């Protein structure tokens, strides 16, 4: 253990600071947010977030040398009261013993810094964005609570602790999506997100139980270590390891919006835009990726699981990108883009390039947060307008937003030397290294599509003529500095994050062999060409030959309809929910099991007892001597048995 007691406390402090902010805001919110101090809540929330970030940076710097240890640093207990003064396990039941331990290694440090850093910027942004909302105290308290749970998810040293964070961020996501709960669609979207996530979470719980059953531990590091000692038969296609991995992956799918559980994320855009940026782009949705990367040794030992992860990721990336092509809502385009990019990350995991996945996660956090915040700025400028068909020509009206948004777009499209280029290139290289040409091909195609829909978005929003109606009372205006400053910061991050050698930094913590970089000097050129091709095509199609997309849509009517219907996922779920489940519940569960079986059983027992009693009451003659005679007969029979029959 560390000799420096201060170091032992700091991760806990970083973790609990946002919780303290939440407590302060929810208990004393009205005092903090007094009249004439409309920003108090935002300032407090931002400060706690910045504090966490600072503490993590500080401990990261202090631990830099120690972090080389692949097992990371584990902080079992905060021993504020001196060594050993307060040793208690979080859960202790039979053989299950789970300490309240945090794990700080390069992986969780990267995640934690991303969460708190990007989170801080988004907090700051929110101050301006929510300035006119009457309930900003509630908003910021939720945001702080979210930060706490996210940090718990990231820093938790065991699966159950991670799961607490996991559920906590789910809760906050629900609360924030439905923040404007008076709007029907918002509260519906919140419920949808919650319900869909439950499916994944249930799988996660089962996976956790299975993991404990198979490995005897729920500690994140020990789980990875124990895999190696498992016998060969455990590695089978449907062995416990594979099964555990698949169940945990299903959980990850729910949280990270992978097929077929992605349907909640686009709807989650009903929440405030900073929430979309923070939760549904930069941090929470990457939880699934983090979980898979965290358990890299586990996944790496099961080829089946890896294949499933890779295929699901690739498919999600492609499908979401195609849907993004036809979306008209600026935030929905970004939402599908997020789904697509998360698919990319899972693709990376699936081909064994876990470090690269984290790298993309890292860069994606910057540029996607930037894009969301930029879109928020646009929406702010247009007083709530989200439909791209009623935008256009905003380039000169809101130049700060435009330029930062441009940086984000280029980064996402993968144009060098911006961040997205490096991480995406590394993913494609990983796919190539895994000798899966199909995955590589689809990945490349998705990259082109990504560039295309981003180009479309950029052109439709910022170029051409303004197609909406400007309300004289609310003229189009640039956002306040508190919103622009985070945009600028994130733009700088998006531009530069690619320089960070995350895979190399994270590598030791993953404890799986790094992917060999393929000898393909052509890859960067091809990737860049694809990105540029997509952007240029989009620019041409949506600014010069504007009726080509419409004609194409008419020509390829079924394809367009399928895309507009988002491949019918929602319809299918709706059908399942309203027909299969409702009808099944009514016919099978209610009439069949409840009325028929359970009621029948209960009533049957009652009737059976009644008829039995009717038959047996003849013995109740009320004659004392009759009863005594029966007793005597019993005694004689018992004695006879004991004497002669035994």
């Amino acid at each position, binding site marked *: 253990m560390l000799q420096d007691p201060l170091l032992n406390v700091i991760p806990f402090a970083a973790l609990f600071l946002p919780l303290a902010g939440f407590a302060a805001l929810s208990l004393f919110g009205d005092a903090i947010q007094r009249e004439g101090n409309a920003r108090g809540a935002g300032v407090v929330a931002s400060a706690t977030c910045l504090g966490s970030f600072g503490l993590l940076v500080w401990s990261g710097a202090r631990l830099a040398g120690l972090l080389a240890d692949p097992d990371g640093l584990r902080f079992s207990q905060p021993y504020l009261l001196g060594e050993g003064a307060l040793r208690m396990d979080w859960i202790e039941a039979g053989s299950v013993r789970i300490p309240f331990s945090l794990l700080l290694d390069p992986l969780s440090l990267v995640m934690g810094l991303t969460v708190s850093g990007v989170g801080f910027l988004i907090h700051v942004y929110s101050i301006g964005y929510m300035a006119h909302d009457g309930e900003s105290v509630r908003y910021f308290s939720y945001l702080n609570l979210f930060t706490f749970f996210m940090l718990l998810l990231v820093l938790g040293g065991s699966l159950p602790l991670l799961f607490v964070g996991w559920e906590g961020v789910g809760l906050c996501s629900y609360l924030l999506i439905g923040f404007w709960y008076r709007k029907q669609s918002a509260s519906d979207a919140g419920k949808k997100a919650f319900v869909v996530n439950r499916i994944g979470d249930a799988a996660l719980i089962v996976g956790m139980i299975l993991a404990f059953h198979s490995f005897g531990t729920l500690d994140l590091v020990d789980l990875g270590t124990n895999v190696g000692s498992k016998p060969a038969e455990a590695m089978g296609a449907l062995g416990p390891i594979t099964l555990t991995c698949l169940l945990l992956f299903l959980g990850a799918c729910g949280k990270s919006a992978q097929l077929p559980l992605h349907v909640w994320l686009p709807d989650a855009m009903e929440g405030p835009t900073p929430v979309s940026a923070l939760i549904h782009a930069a941090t929470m949705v990457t939880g699934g990726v983090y979980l898979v990367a965290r358990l890299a040794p586990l996944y790496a030992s099961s080829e089946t699981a890896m294949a499933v992860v890779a295929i699901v990721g690739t498919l999600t990336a492609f499908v979401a990108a195609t849907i993004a092509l036809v979306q008209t809502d600026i935030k929905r385009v970004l939402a599908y883009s997020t789904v697509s990019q998360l698919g990319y990350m899972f693709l990376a995991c699936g081909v064994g390039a876990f470090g690269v996945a984290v790298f993309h996660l890292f860069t994606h956090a910057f540029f996607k947060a930037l894009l969301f915040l930029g879109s928020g700025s646009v929406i702010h400028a247009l007083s709530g307008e989200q439909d791209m068909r009623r935008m256009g020509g905003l380039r000169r009206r809101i130049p700060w937003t435009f330029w930062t948004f441009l940086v984000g777009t280029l980064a996402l499209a993968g144009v060098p030397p911006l961040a997205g280029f490096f991480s995406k290139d590394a993913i494609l290289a990983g796919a190539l290294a895994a000798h899966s040409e199909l995955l590589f091909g689809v990945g490349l195609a998705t990259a082109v599509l990504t560039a295309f829909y981003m180009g479309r978005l950029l052109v439709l929003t910022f170029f051409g003529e303004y197609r909406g109606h400007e309300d004289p009372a609310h003229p189009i205006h640039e956002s306040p500095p508190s919103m622009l400053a985070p945009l600028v910061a994130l733009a700088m991050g998006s531009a530069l994050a690619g320089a960070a050698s995350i895979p190399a930094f994270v590598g030791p913590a993953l404890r799986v062999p790094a992917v060999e970089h393929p000898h393909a000097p052509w890859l960067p050129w091809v990737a860049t060409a694809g990105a540029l091709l997509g952007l240029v095509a989009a620019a041409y199609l949506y600014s010069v030959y504007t009726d080509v997309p419409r004609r194409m849509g008419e020509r390829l009517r079924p394809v367009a309809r399928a895309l507009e219907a988002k491949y019918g996922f929602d319809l299918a779920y709706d059908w399942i929910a309203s027909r299969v489940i409702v009808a099944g519940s009514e016919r099978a569960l209610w009439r069949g099991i409840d009325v028929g079986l359970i009621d029948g059983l209960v009533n049957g027992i009652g009737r059976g007892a009644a008829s039995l009693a009717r038959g047996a009451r003849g013995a109740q003659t009320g004659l004392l001597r009759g009863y*005594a005679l029966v007793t005597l007969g019993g005694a004689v029979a018992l004695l006879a048995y004991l004497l002669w029959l035994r």
Partner: protein
Amino acid sequence: MSPGIPVDHALLLSAALFGIGACGVFLRRNLIAIFMCIELMLNAVNLAFVAFSRAHGTLDGQVLVFFVMTVAAAEAAVGLAIVIALQRHRDSVDADSFDLLRF
């Protein structure tokens, strides 16, 4: 004392008395008579205890008899009180006339 008393015969006497008492419980209808038959059965048991006490040469059997007697006395007191209460309420001590507790 004389060794001439065979313990077996005392035990057989005890069994016979017990049987007679048990028989009486079913033959009699008068509650008090039933009670007396139960006392007879208890005494048969006491006889067996005393016989065994003699056979073993220990006092334990006799101590048990003492306790049986005490319990019998308590039982007689409460039982007869119940009989008196019954007679007062129902004007009968015939066991067959108390048959309300039936189907």
